[in-house]
């Protein structure tokens, strides 16, 4: 296990180097033109300003040197300042709590509703409830997130007036529930299906037959033997998706006007403030990769049958 962990961590290094290089290259090299061109209102920027900014952000250096500087800065925990000289770390500190709240709520909804529905429909395979759940998940899977978002916003916020159509500043937990449902909807459907398949598959397993043959009460067979073993793929799926949720928050945050990391990233892309885009995107990638790694390691803990060499 220890050796496997170390090997996986070492494998992460080239992937991280590759993704950060890719991000840096795309953001700084692909757009072309001068990123400071439209930064001074209606009049063109003074030469001295452009020269000073170009100098400050090292844009005259060759690209490999820029990337090397970026790497050393990030490794020292220095994310730099944006084009308005605000430290990027401050912007992230402002935005991150909201997004983490939103993601946690979404994962909680996914886990509770998804696993709950999946277990019930898996145990009653082929019944009316099972078929309705299958159709329900089918519909959830085919609704793009922004369609779900606008539908709920229109019905609950505008027609019925139960919720605020947009989330107020500070983002209290209660106002984040509906956006979290929207963010969770797609993965909730996946979780439900995964749980169902897992339950149906394990129901035929030898250990379940043994437990039934021993005369254990059904509650114990389901609760102890079946559920625990069926949870393994579901838990790993949920774990992987935490990382992806942070990226998916871009759309949800936009619809409900939440000032989180997704809004920060998307706004910075629109303003072409690449000094914010690169570190925030890097942060999201790191969270995503670490979540994946953690899940991989957890897999071995949850399922002793899996052995890493």
């Amino acid at each position, binding site marked *: 296990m220890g050796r496997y962990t170390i090997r996986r961590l070492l494998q992460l290094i080239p992937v991280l180097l*590759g993704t950060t290089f890719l991000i840096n290259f795309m953001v700084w090299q692909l757009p072309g033109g001068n990123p400071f061109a439209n930064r001074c209102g209606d009049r063109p920027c003074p030469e001295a300003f452009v020269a000073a900014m170009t100098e400050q952000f090292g844009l005259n250096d060759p690209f490999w040197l820029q990337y090397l500087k970026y790497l050393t800065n990030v490794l020292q925990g220095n994310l730099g300042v944006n084009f308005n000289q605000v430290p990027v770390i401050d912007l992230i500190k402002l935005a991150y709590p909201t997004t983490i709240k939103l993601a946690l709520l979404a994962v909680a909804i996914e886990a509770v509703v998804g696993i709950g529905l999946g277990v019930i429909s898996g145990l009653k395979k082929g019944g009316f409830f099972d078929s309705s759940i299958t159709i329900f998940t089918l519909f959830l899977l085919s*609704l793009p997130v922004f369609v779900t978002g*606008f539908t709920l916003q229109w019905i609950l916020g505008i027609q019925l007036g139960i919720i605020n159509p947009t989330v107020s500043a500070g983002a209290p937990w209660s106002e984040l529930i509906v956006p979290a449902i929207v963010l969770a909807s797609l993965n909730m459907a996946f979780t439900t299906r995964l749980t169902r398949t897992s339950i149906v598959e394990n129901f035929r397993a030898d250990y379940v037959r043994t437990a039934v043959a021993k005369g254990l009460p059904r509650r114990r067979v389901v609760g102890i033997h079946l559920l625990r073993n069926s949870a393994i793929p579901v838990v790993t799926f949920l774990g992987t998706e935490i990382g992806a949720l942070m990226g998916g928050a871009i759309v949800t945050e936009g619809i409900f006007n939440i000032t989180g990391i997704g809004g920060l990233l998307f706004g910075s*892309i629109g303003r072409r403030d690449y000094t914010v885009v690169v570190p925030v995107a890097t942060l999201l990638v790191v969270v995503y990769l670490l979540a994946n790694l953690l899940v991989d390691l957890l897999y071995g803990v949850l399922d002793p049958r899996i052995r890493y060499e």
Partner: protein
Amino acid sequence: MSDPVTIQTAGVAAGGEVQETTAPGSGKPRSLWQDAWAELRKQPLFWISLALLAVFIVMAIFPQLFTGKDPAFAELRRSLEPPSAAAWFGYDLQGRDVYARTIYGARASVVVGVLTTVLAVLVGVIMGVIGGFAGGWVDSLTSRIGEIFIGVPYLLGAILILSTVAPAQENPGAVLITAVVIIVLSVLSWPIVARIARSSLLSVKHADYVLAARALGASPGRIIFRHLLPNSLAPIIVVATISMGSYISAEATLSFLGVGLRAPVISWGIAIADHTDYLRTALHAMLFPSIFLSVCVLAFVMLGDAVRSALDPKLR
């Protein structure tokens, strides 16, 4: 981006198994493909999705069959007029007919969904086969390259690439805009196909019939195309059909965010994005494109579901 491509590829995705069933002699036991086809034929979901897809594909190729109106014709005095007998779905912000624009919007979604799948499968299978067949450092290299592209969350990666590529284009035409979206989506999704192709190939690589072919002196090309690929195709087909719907959904999301398809192209995502500010006053302008988009994705998801349950023996 010609239409025959659409028909052809959609036909392969939907009915590829049909041709397989007629190939082996009738005396032999049923092959996986015959089994799958028999299984598929019994599912109502499969036929419903096929019917829906047929409608969308006809809509994509011949939108004129459904509407006689010009989707680009705009009359500002009709801006945001609600649905009426003259215009079933009402008018949008520019005073264009929402019904006509929704019908014409099918083309972008179908083209993006189908071509992205084709491109992602093509690149993914080539990379997966190269890695799985060659093994050693080639395998490590292709796997690591794939991991870099999967390492970026899908939506984030697409937004980053598209928003940085877009400013570089001067007045692009509809074809170029669509092509860029297709390429970006497939660049980010080929590693998933490659991973599945590779593991599927590895599972049959040491089968007796492959060793026998090798012992008889078959060339690597013959082994790959005659033995390895046909026997590792099922999981690739499953993932290809399932992901087609998600590509359409992704395209709509990106267009909605303003980084995917743009103005000269008519797309459901753009129509929805253009009218988000009028949610309270003119719901119809975004309601109908949303419904069409969801039903189209639903059709592809249902097809993927049906194909998977037919090809995956574990689910039977």
